[in-house]
């Protein structure tokens, strides 16, 4: 056996890339679970095409999964990767720009044959594996297909089924490279294929073959160790944003004691919330897959009228269709949570790519004066808390609330020190109680100190009343075209939103000085990149702070004052400048927009460079 040197690393970024049918998402997820169970901090970034099986071998069909894991705090999936797994030449071509100089390429040579070269538009007589163009990297060429096929020659499986095991070879090899236990993947395979023993055994065999390949060949001189991260003590799990959002909604339903009704229509990247919730019927979760987006929200409004914790979920194009109904919910003054997992737009845009371009839509995208409450999650695990918060505010204030997430955090994963039910606040809800004939008439638009109206659900004696989209007379709820009443109601609905500021936490500084040269004011899924960039700048001695807004309408009461403590305010966003418009409008601060609109998250390095440029 050759001499293998073991090296200790602080953090590593691996990018798995292959054809969208190569199982790279699964491979990445498996490695993520193993890293999480080992105790590393981590962040992931799945980057895949919208087509389930995009044209094989082409650049458009490349599916990638990047994981950044380490023994230190990790907040982003990493700007550049240390290891690139390329299952074919298209995957290499599409991803080589993400690889650090000197980084390792693990290339499946079978994916570099003449056909693959042609599909990836590589000029004839060129082969990156042999023409020296990859000289600045550490290239490891392995015929994964051939090895997999020979390992499974006696398996009795067909070639198609055998080739589907290729990703397990890569996974086994990477496990070996980073000294990882394969137990979690072994258990996964055993469970997933428990009814197909031949396929189960084939996957297990190839996984082991990958490990053995690293162990026995002399191809790899180094093996790496990444120690567990020093994280706050507690019990952790790995969680993806949409999973966390679904759990947050269920938790809110349990804490308020009302059944959860989720009316929705499938759409990328929000569908996983429906998939999750539809499994939880025993938690009194009712999922309704409607005939369209409009029916999704309207069914939720019906359920809200009936006394359920009502939620609808979608992404930008679907939210556009729900617009009129959000206006109705605002007039009805019923609790409703509208989940928007943002994606790159407009129109169909780029469904699997991330963007934060629906903030103004949430704020202003309705006819008439129609203010709503808006909260946004900042990381995969934070989706739990903010989804819970959206429900709390909707129920406590009898108001529609937007919960914003985005494709990046929805599909990204991170370790989560999850709460116990006992630590979660209760959400007290009380319905209006029945009345006898001799009691005063029920007033459906009577208001409490939060300006909320009574929630009088059908079936309650003596509270028969009518609500609707036509302007209401305050207190009585009767139809009213009275000019002064309309103006009063418009003000009341705005005030109702504004009052929520008394029931949310104040804005805090995430890192950096409490006053200084520059504040990066972010919101949503850019949190990790901005936090990392702020840390880098602070270590270099810059007077730069980072604050991340999770409550966007209304803003925390102290936000204006906080902004005034810095000479410069920069608002980095994955859009063409949305939060910055609202900040400039509301606080009269000369905030500087910093925008990226490529369907890709910020990289910490580019943020650092931009901030330095602004400070120069």
């Amino acid at each position: 056996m050759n001499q293998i040197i073991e090296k200790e690393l602080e953090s590593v970024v691996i990018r798995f890339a292959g054809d969208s049918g190569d199982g790279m998402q699964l491979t990445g997820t498996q490695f993520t679970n193993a890293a999480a169970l080992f105790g590393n901090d981590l962040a992931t970034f799945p980057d895949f095409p919208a087509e389930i099986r995009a044209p094989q071998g082409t650049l458009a069909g490349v599916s990638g999964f990047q994981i950044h894991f380490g023994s230190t705090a990790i907040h982003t999936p990493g700007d550049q990767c240390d290891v690139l797994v390329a299952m074919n030449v298209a995957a290499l071509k599409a991803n080589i720009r993400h690889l650090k100089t000197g980084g390792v390429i693990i290339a499946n040579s079978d994916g570099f044959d003449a056909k693959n070269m042609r599909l990836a538009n590589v000029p004839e007589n060129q082969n990156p594996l042999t023409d020296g163009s990859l000289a600045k990297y550490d290239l490891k060429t392995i015929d994964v297909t051939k090895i997999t096929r020979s390992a499974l020659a006696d398996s009795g499986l067909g070639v198609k089924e055998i080739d589907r095991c290729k990703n397990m070879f890569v996974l086994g090899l990477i496990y070996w490279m980073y000294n990882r236990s394969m137990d979690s993947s072994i258990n996964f395979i055993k469970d997933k294929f428990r009814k197909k023993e031949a396929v189960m055994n084939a996957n297990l065999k190839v996984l082991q073959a990958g490990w053995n390949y690293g162990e026995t060949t002399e191809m790899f001189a180094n093996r790496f160790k990444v120690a567990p991260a020093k994280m706050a003590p507690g019990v952790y799990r790995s969680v993806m944003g949409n999973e966390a959002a679904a759990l947050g909604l269920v938790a809110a339903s349990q804490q308020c004691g009302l059944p959860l009704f989720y009316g929705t229509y499938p759409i990328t990247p929000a569908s996983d919330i429906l998939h999750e919730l539809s499994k939880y019927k025993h938690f009194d979760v009712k999922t309704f897959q409607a005939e369209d987006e409009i029916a999704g929200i309207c069914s939720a409004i019906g359920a809200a009228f009936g006394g359920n914790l009502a939620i609808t979920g979608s992404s930008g194009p679907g939210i556009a269709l729900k617009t009129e109904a959000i206006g109705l919910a605002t007039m009805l003054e019923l609790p409703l949570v509208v989940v928007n997992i943002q994606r790159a737009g407009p129109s169909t845009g780029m469904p699997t790519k991330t963007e934060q371009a629906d903030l103004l839509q949430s704020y202003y995208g309705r006819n008439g004066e129609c203010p709503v409450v808006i909260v946004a999650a900042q990381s995969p695990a934070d989706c739990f808390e903010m989804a819970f918060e959206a429900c709390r505010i909707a129920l406590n204030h009898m108001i529609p609330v937007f919960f914003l997430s985005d494709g990046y955090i929805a599909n990204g994963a991170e370790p989560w020190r999850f709460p116990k039910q006992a630590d979660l606040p209760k959400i007290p809800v009380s319905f209006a109680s029945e009345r006898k004939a001799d009691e005063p008439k029920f007033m459906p638009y009577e208001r409490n100190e939060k300006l909320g109206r009574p929630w009088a659900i059908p079936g309650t004696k003596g509270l028969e009343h009518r609500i609707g989209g036509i302007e209401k007379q305050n207190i009585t709820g009767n139809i009213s075209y009275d000019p002064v009443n309309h103006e009063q109601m418009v003000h009341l609905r705005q005030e109702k939103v504004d009052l929520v500021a008394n029931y949310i936490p104040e804005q805090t500084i995430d890192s950096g000085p409490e006053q200084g040269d520059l504040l990066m004011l972010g919101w949503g899924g850019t949190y990790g990149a901005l936090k990392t960039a702020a840390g880098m700048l602070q270590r270099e001695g810059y007077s730069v702070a980072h604050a991340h807004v999770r409550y966007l309408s209304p803003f925390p009461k102290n936000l204006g004052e906080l902004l005034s403590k810095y000479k410069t305010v920069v608002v980095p966003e994955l859009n063409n400048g949305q939060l910055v418009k609202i900040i400039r409008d509301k606080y009269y601060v000369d905030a500087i927009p910093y925008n990226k609109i490529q369907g890709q998250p910020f990289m910490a390095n580019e943020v650092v460079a931009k901030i330095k440029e602004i400070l120069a």
Partner: protein
Amino acid sequence: MDVVDNKLTSKDFVSDQEVRWCPGCGDYSILKQVQTVLPDLGRPKEEFVFISGIGCSSRFPYYMDTYGMHSIHGRAAAIATGLKASRPELSVWMVTGDGDSMSIGGNHFIHMLRRNIDLNVLLFNNQIYGLTKGQYSPTSEKGKVTKSSPYGSVDYSFNPVALSLGADATFVARTMDRDPKHQQAMIRRAYEHTGTSLVEIYQNCSVFNDGAFEVFTEKGTKKLETLFMEHGKPLVFGENNDKGIKLDGFKPVIVNLSEVSANDLWIHDEYDLVKATLLSRFYDDPEVEGHFPRPFGVFYVNPDKASYDHLFNDQINHIKELKGTPNLDKLIAGNETWVVN
């Protein structure tokens, strides 16, 4: 179901809101019939909910002293579906018009029927857009001259009964504003059916489409132009009940009872979908020679198909039984956890 101690009267269902339909509007009659039937159903008032969309007909909930929602155009079916699925013990009614349900809300309408959710749907068909002041609707006859079709509409019209049967409705009936007794009977039948009950009501718009259904409703022509279907009885019509419908294979023919015995006539069978489909196509222009009379009554009823709200909640209850008391801590923790000390 609770027993109502003090018997309700129609007055109990009259709200304190002033009714604002045009004088002579057919809607008044429908409101009156609903308020007449509801007290007799033996159900507490607070269990009734009326959901509507937009249009003249959709003002209906304001005039009923029940729970109600006047929602947005075309969406009543979706809202009512959400309410009924989440609160199956309520009696949920949907009030809609030909613009609301046949046009902007068409998608929700067919999917409501496909699901067979237990709603009672009153479709006020006046073959015109009234609230927007007189444009042709999807049920207006081709060639109709209106504000938006000064040279005559070139649109073919929808046949709501045929559409409903095509969408697998389990209860389909037709009635008219000018026949209170028949209307009451249809409303009651709709209530008694479990599943989506569709009642198409020919309703006169006295301002923008006055007399659209005159041939069916007025004394001089009613007997000749209408066919009142009753289960188990032969299809008979005409001035002196002297005409009937006979089936010649799958071909309906009009016969004179002086020539054909009543025993040989088509006997109406509400449970026969094929025959209901044939009857739904009795939709000729009454001006055309040899046309069939327009059928009224229950076309079709399928009492055996489980309703959506039933299936929806049954499944939830089954999963609850199967999985036992839910444990939120376990759910949040997921399958794999690790401890950091």
